[in-house]
């Protein structure tokens, strides 16, 4: 069972949770949304600057567990520079990865570290929260979204 823990908390995840990339507000953001996981108190705000159908800049802020912070941090790295139309597809593959341990279509390699999450059903919401929030931001939804 300690193997499971090592699978869940891979070095990359611990590193991103301690030193999240693109952390902070994005003054030039065109889109943003808030996400919450009421069960454990994860809260994040995601900012996107969309230009010409591309994510030109992305950042997040908030507090949460190691899994949700690392997921948000890796999401920002993944989305940076991507066409907006790819985001929903990424969300869906990420969802498969964290619930079943594998995606159907290939995902950017760095997201593979989240495969271990599927052995921890209570942590799936933490990993997927930033991705839900990204979709909400693209819709510019005003109400905070929650995983409950």
């Amino acid at each position, binding site marked *: *069972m*300690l193997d*499971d*823990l090592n699978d*869940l*908390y891979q070095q990359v995840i*611990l590193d991103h949770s301690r030193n999240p990339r693109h952390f902070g507000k994005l003054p030039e953001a065109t889109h943003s949304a808030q996400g919450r996981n009421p*069960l*454990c*108190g*994860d*809260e994040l705000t995601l900012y996107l600057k969309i230009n010409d159908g591309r994510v030109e800049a992305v950042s997040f802020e908030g*507090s*949460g*567990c*190691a*899994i949700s912070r690392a997921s948000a941090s890796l999401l920002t790295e993944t989305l940076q520079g991507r066409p907006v139309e790819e985001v929903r597809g990424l969300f869906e593959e990420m969802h498969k990865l964290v619930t079943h341990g594998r995606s159907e279509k290939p995902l950017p390699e760095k997201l593979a570290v989240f495969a271990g999450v599927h052995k*921890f059903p*209570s*942590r799936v919401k*933490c990993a997927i929260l930033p991705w839900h929030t990204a979709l909400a931001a693209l819709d510019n939804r005003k109400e905070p979204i929650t995983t409950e």
Partner: protein
Amino acid sequence: MREQATKRGSEEQTNKAAAEALRPEAIRKDFPALGQTVHGRPLVYLDNAATTQRPLAVIEAIRGFYLRDNANVHRGSYDLSHRATEAYEAARARTARFLNAAEPAEIIFTRNATEAINLAAFSWSERFLGPGDAILLTEMEHHSNLVPWQMAARRAGARLLFVPVTGPEGLLDMDRVQALLRPPVKLFAFTHVSNALGTINPAAELCRLARQRGIVTLVDAAQSAGHMPLDVRELGCDFLALSGHKLCGPTGIGALYAKRELLEAMPPWQTGGEMIDQVTLDQSSWAPPPHKFEAGTPNIAGAVGLGAAVDYLERIGRERVFRHELELTAYALDRLKEVKGLRLFGPKTAPPHAGAISFCFETIHAHDVVTFVDRLGVALRGGHHCAQPLMRKLGVPATARASFYLYNTRQEADALVEALQETRRFFGA
């Protein structure tokens, strides 16, 4: 003569038993669920503030009811229905005795403490709360003793006031209590033991201060009822709420204690069958308490289980349960200080710290702590513990919580400390 001597003898025996320290190793045999392993490790169940495990006596009582005595209550005039009614009403009488209520009719069965508080907040406020009045609460309330009063205040045009919690030790500011207990406050509702901080509040003193000023009191005893001796007349409260599942009983059953005069004066809450006297197509009159507040078919087997739970606790002795929990808490508080980077909330000593200990690492989120120690067999709760305003005040998004009960041992407290040390090493905190 002889009879008297025997009686004295048996009383002495009881007193001797009461004086003896509780032996959790023996008690664990009554709780089959405690004997299992999780993730290949012995289960160390430390989430008793959320719900306790059930002893065989309770499981058997429920099973026995369904196997032999099951029928609806207060309806049939056949033998089986009599037996079911008797079992249900006997459970009420046992619960009344457990709390030292003046009579069984002062016990209303509900689904849980939450429903008990909702009942009081609705019915009492309908009759006694008006525009400009205030309800006094504390900053450490469980959402269950906050949200129902928000709703009641909104309906009545009344407002809420709060006794502040001082510092990370989490004690009520008693000077502010004195200052706040005056008009327009009509009712003071507070938790006896905080589920998030472990603080034992001076309930009798709080009720006395309120009573002197003609203010009605409600004690949320969800975290105290199965853990320490509790006597509503000694406390001097007007209402008291408890949940069966937090004191060895089944889920789906709780109770509201209320003084008879209040129950007489309050309008019903839910309405329908079982709670009426006369019904015409246009209007109805109510049955006397407690039935006035128990609409529809109640949780009969749940009540029977609750009755068995309070019997079980009385047999063990709540004084001994309390002493055991305080000793274990004092031991754990002491040992937890060894864990580097761990921040402890709530009082520094037991008492006034009851058996629920909240803590967090400066650099590891509570949710990660809970996931990690679970893989080592230790069941903790992580989160805001249904006390978001309090968490905001403590300045943390979440804490982890270990909560003890009569069957927890020092070895389990040691296992907790070990698991937290391992967590710290793993996350490099």
